[in-house]
Every structure is written in C-alpha cells, then in structure tokens.
C-alpha cells in the first residue's frame, strides 16, 4: 500500500469536501425552506471567488503582491461573503419571489436562466480565460505550496489548514445560529411548515431572505477557499462545483444540515480517491454512481428522514 498517495488524497479529499460542504449547505437550506433547486447557487460561489480575486488585483496582482497576508485574507473573506450573500438576496428578490406559488417547473427554469446569465455575464466582464489566483510574493512562496509535512512527506499546506479551520468555524457559527437564535428557530419552523409558520406570526419573507443571505455567503467563502487552494478562477467553475455540491446535499439528505456536511466530505473524498487511484476523467462517473446508489438504497439521503406526503 502506497501511504504517500493515500494520505495525499485523504488531505485533498477533506479539503475539497469542505468546499463542497459549504456550497451544499446553501443548497440544502434553500431547498429546506422553499423546496427549490437553486441552480444559480454554484454561480454565486463563482462570483464569490472573483470578489476575492478582486482584492488580489487591487494589491498588485498574483505575481507582485505587496500586502499583509492576514489583512488580505480577512478582506477577501468578508467581501466575498458579503457580496455573495447580497447576490443571493438579489436573486431571490427579483427572480424567485414572484414564483413562490407557481408550478414547480417555473422557478427551476428561472434558476437555470439565472445561472446561465451569471456565467455569461462573468465571461463578458472578466473574460473566459482562467485567472491566476496565486498570491505569489506574500511569503515568497504561495500558501498553497508552503506548509507542514506529515510523516511520509505529505504536505499539508497553509491553504489546506485555512480551509479546514475556516470551514469548522463557519459550521460552528451556523449551528449556533440555527439552533440558538430566534431567527434560527424561525428558519427551522419555516422549513418544517411554511404556512403554519406564517400563521404563528413568523415573517416568512424575512426568513427566506436571511436563508438566502447565509447560504450564499457560505458559497462566497467557499469560492475564496477554492481559489487559494487551486490557484485559479474561471467563469464556468460554478457549474461542476454546483453539481457536485448538490449531489452532496442529496446524498446527505437534502434539507438536513449535518447531512450536507457529511455528504460534502464523502463526495470530496470520493472525487479525490477516484482521481488518485483511477483517473481524473472518471471522477464525475464515480460521483454519479454514488448518487444513483444512494438514491436507489435510501431515496431520502443517508441522514434524511423519509418525507411523508400529506394531501
């Protein structure tokens, strides 16, 4: 057994899994409340990534950075989360709100339209080519290459550490928010039964806005995480990430937040082991097989409860 390969793929898998988990949370939260598949969510992640990239450009571009690393990261994360969150709120307000009581297919098509619009608008504004996200020059080596070595010479870079720690922090914060605050309670009530919640005096519109803001802010953060690890951004990056993250949400049981995180890690690990042991071209096939297998065995996801349809 090749330990080096195994541990390397394990580290990459966990890191990717964290990114997928953050995106999956947004899918899951929105689905839980609106029963809407928000196809545009992956593109919010892309926009978040580009907002972070904006700061790299402001501080001199990838190859001639002159900024404090900590300051830069703080700026990148706060602005990407705020920007992503606002974008999510705007999408909800202008594209989805009128369609809440429309036939199910209408908001889905709208979501596809929004995704398509965001992808192509990004191509218009920043160009279709990949951009270097690599913050060279902060520390003479980029944080994706510098780090600690585990036994058997596996690198855990600063980027990996930032992603894993950052994801844990965000998840603790989210759990606290959903479980302990008044608004979190309102969110849980709304996802349980929107009409009953409205009758109990919960401002459902506000809850939905908050949900979109938080979910999209997490996606924005995931965009920056992905950027500092992969060192590149491009306008179509949201499509596949969104697809995988949605699969993660389905595998974990959509609407179930811990399930989404577990699903994200599972998909991340599956993807990275498939790349390491089979071939990078078949990662999609492996994820697809997992999706089909879970849907056949447990249609409500690994952690989801079977939904009882009431008439």
């Amino acid at each position, binding site marked *: 057994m090749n330990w080096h390969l195994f541990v390397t793929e394990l580290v990459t898998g966990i890191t990717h899994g964290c990114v997928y988990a953050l995106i999956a949370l947004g899918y899951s939260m929105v*689905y839980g409340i609106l*029963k809407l*598949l928000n196809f545009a969510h992956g593109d919010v992640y892309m926009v978040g990534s580009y907002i972070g990239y904006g700061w790299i450009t402001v501080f001199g571009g990838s190859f001639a950075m002159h900024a404090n690393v900590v300051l830069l990261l703080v700026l990148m994360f706060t602005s990407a989360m705020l920007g992503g969150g606002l974008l999510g709120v*705007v999408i909800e307000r*202008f*594209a989805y709100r*009128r*369609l809440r*009581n*429309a*036939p*199910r*297919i*209408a*908001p*889905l*098509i*709208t979501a*596809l*339209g*929004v*995704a*398509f*619009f*965001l*992808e*192509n*608008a990004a*191509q*218009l*504004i920043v160009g279709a080519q990949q951009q270097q996200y690599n913050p060279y020059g902060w520390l003479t080596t980029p944080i994706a290459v510098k780090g600690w070595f585990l036994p058997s010479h596996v690198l855990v870079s600063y980027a990996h550490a930032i992603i894993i720690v950052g994801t844990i922090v965000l998840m603790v914060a989210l759990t606290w928010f959903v479980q302990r605050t008044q608004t979190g309670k309102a969110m849980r009530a709304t996802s349980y039964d929107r009409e009953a919640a409205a009758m109990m005096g919960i401002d459902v519109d506000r809850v939905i806005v908050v949900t979109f803001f938080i979910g999209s802010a997490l996606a924005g953060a995931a965009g920056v995480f992905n950027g500092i690890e992969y060192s590149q951004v491009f306008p*179509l990056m949201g*499509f*596949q990430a969104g*697809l995988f993250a*949605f*699969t993660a949400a*389905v595998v974990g049981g959509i609407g179930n937040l811990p399930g989404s995180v577990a699903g994200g890690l599972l998909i991340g690990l599956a993807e990275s082991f498939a790349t390491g042991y089979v071939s990078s*071209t078949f990662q*999609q*096939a492996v*994820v*697809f097989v997992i*999706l*089909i297998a879970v*849907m*056949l065995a447990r*249609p409500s996801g690994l952690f989801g409860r079977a939904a009882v*349809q009431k*008439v």
Partner: protein
Amino acid sequence: MSEDTPQRPDERQVPKVGVDSWVATHAQRVEGTRLQAELARIPRPAFYAGFAVFAALLPAFTSSGYIVRVGFDTLLYMLLALGLNIVVGYAGLLDLGYVAFYGFGAYAYAMLASPKFGLHWDTLAVIPVVVIASAILGFLVALPSRRLLGDYLAIVTLFFGQLFVVVMQNGESVSFLGLTKHYDLTGGPNGIVDIDNWNLGGLHVGSVQGYYYCALITFMLALTAMYLVDTSRTGRAWKSLREDPLAAELMGMPVNRLKLIAFACGAAIAGLTGTLFAALNTTVFAINFDVSTSLIIVYAVLLLGGAGSIGGVILGAIVVNVSLEVLRDPNHSTWLFYILIVGVLVAKIRPWRVLAGILVATVAIGYALRGICAAAWPRGMQGEPVVGGALGSWVNGWVIHPATPQTIANVCFVLLVVAVLGLTLLHGWQRLVALPPTLYLAAFVWNNRLAVEPSVTRLILVGVILIVLMNARPQGLLGTARVEIA
C-alpha cells in the same frame, strides 16, 4: 315538476361538471379579443399545414445556402423541442440531460455510417436502430429515478448529460475493465469525421436543400404523431400526471410506467434528430452536445413557445433561432436590440405622449453628456463606434464612445443590471423619471460592449429571456395558463 321548480335568484351559468369552477371563471375572465376568438375557431391542423407549405416554399424563395441552413437548424430545434415537449410539457418531468440523447443519436449514426468502423449502413436501417437504442437509453436513465420527486430527476439527468460529454470526450481508448486491449470508440476530442450522407435505400441526400426537406418531412411526421398523441389516452394521462401525480396515481394511472414512456419517447425523437445533425455536418464532437449551451437553448425554444403546445414549438424555434442568428452580426443585432426595447416601451407605456417624452429625454441626455465630455473629458469622445448601419449611425450620434471602453462599459453593464432591477421596484412617476437614464445606460453598454462580443451577448440574452419569461408569462407565447390551486 321541472316547471314549478323556483328559479334561484343567484343562479348563474355554472361550469360543466369536471371543470374546476375557479379555473373556468378564470378562463372566462381572461377571454381575449374577437380576433383571438376567430383564430381559435380555425382547426389546428390548418395552421400546421400552412406552416408546412410555407416552410416547403422557403428554398424556392431564396438561393442563399445560408438561409436554408438556418432554416434547417431551426427545424432541428423544432424537432428537439417537440421531443422535450413530451417530457417537460406533457409529463411535467424536468429532463436536464436531454441533449445527451441528441448526442447519442448523432454518435450512433456516426458510428454506423462512417469510415470509423468501416460501417456504411443504409439510413433506412440506421434510423430504426438509433431510435430504438435512444428510447432504451432514455428508459434506463429514467429507471433509477422514476420513484423520486421531479427535482431529483432533474439532477440525475443533468449528471447524465455531463457524463455523456465526458465519456464521449475520453472514449478514444476504451478497454473493458482493463481486460481487453484498448479500442477507440468515439475518437475522443477529435470526434468522428467524414460521416456519410443520408442514403435512403439508394437515394443519396447531398445538398443543404435536401437535408432541409428531410428535416421538414421528419418534423411533419413527428408533429402529426404528437398531434394524435395529444388527445389520446396516453396524452391525457401524461397531462394529468403533470397536473398532480398523486391524484393521477389515485385514479389508477400507472404513474411510473407513464414517466418511463414519456422519457423514452422524448429520447427517441432526440436520437432521430441527432442523425440529421450528424449527417449534415459530417462531423460530431462531444462539445456539440454540452449541457449548458445547447440544453438551455432547447429549453428556451420550448418555454418561449409554451410548454405543452405543439404550435408553440414551431413559433419558439423560429423566434429563438432566428434571433440568435441575427445576433451574430453587430449591425443586425443593434436593430433587434433597439426594436425590442422600443417594443416593450410601446406595450407598457401609455399614453404615447409620455413615451415620446421618454425617448426624447433619453436622446437629450445623450447630447448633453456628449457636450460635457467634449468639454471636460476628451478621452470619452475618442473611441471608434463598433455598430454601423442606418440605426447604428444614428445612435452613434448621441452615445459616448470612450477610447478604451472595456473597463468603463463593464462597470456600466453591472450598473445597468442594477438599474433595471431597481426599475421593477419603482412605480408611477418615479419609474418614468428613472427610465431615460436607464435607457441611455443600455444604449451606452450596448454600443460599447455588448455589440462588441456577440457570442457572449447572445447567451446572456437567452438567460434574460428565460428569467423574464418565467416571471412574466410562465405559459409562454402559445401555452395555456395553468391555475395553481393550493
């Protein structure tokens, strides 16, 4: 007995049994003009026959191969939308892997009729094979997700569509579980080239005109079939499935089987369309069938015309494909863009004096800004206008063209999106006041940025069409409005 039954004072025309009273009264309330009523009396087949005659005469009117080619592409979109109409319009299942079946048909034709494997089958033999194989593939894809909610089906099919492209793109060395030697099945990124023309039992189709007529005949046959299915037992069952799967199941309909049949039928039509595509282009590449672009355009065709409506498929394909072709050329697309804007304004703003005022104000802003620019920011006047033509030159007269417009026009594009979204929140005089600056911004962004990049602009507009359509008129141009009863 009946004569002495007292007339109830509140008795009105009660809808027939089986029609929900709310739906019926809704239909009465939205009853259209006299013209619409007269049009509704003409039987549908007359419209289809009229379309067929007109379409058949098109190559006679023009000698341009380009126009016939655009007509062929439009017919392909009609066929694709007709197949998608079964799945989405009738059965109400969201199939996001639909173009994969189209690609499957094209690849299957390419493999059976090209030097790739040395097979040169007669087209009359290939078509049944491809159609049946596509139907089986559709059946298999729908199989694991048949019991799931519509949304899960969407994601499984989306994945399938993605996977199809990946497999075709990497199929240049396939071995069965690593046991056999590596075979080149799909040509990988190089695709399959040199595909045979259609060969109908000795009759070779060689020209664009020939393919145009083949596509037209195929489409009319498929359309006839769909017209018959529309009111058939299965067609009605599909529609009830769309309206309420649970109620349909309680009425004893085999819901799972209906879903599978819908999927297989849609896939079969897509596969058939694929053979036409492969034969005319003589090449197939995996990238032709990528999920984002082709799929979204087929959906735009179907939804613009109206899901569930056969006539809508024809209208939608013509509007969408012809617009996309027109958008390739900056001068033509400029006409389209401004006509669209003025058209929306004419439809939405009454009386016409206000409309005229808004247009004059927009142009006035333009001249004022040009004056300011000439005095204070000379760089703002040094750009070369991109759009030409009669309308283009007139607009160039009052729009600023900065020297290097890219960055500033990008910023203005974002501002324009924000401004248009903001307009939807304003009402009354506030909206009227905000309109001229927004219109000017639109003209500025169009002339400096959007017209420069037609390939991206086309796709942006497709996205916008989908969003606006679903919010403003979800039933499309020719569809019937559905009333959601909660």
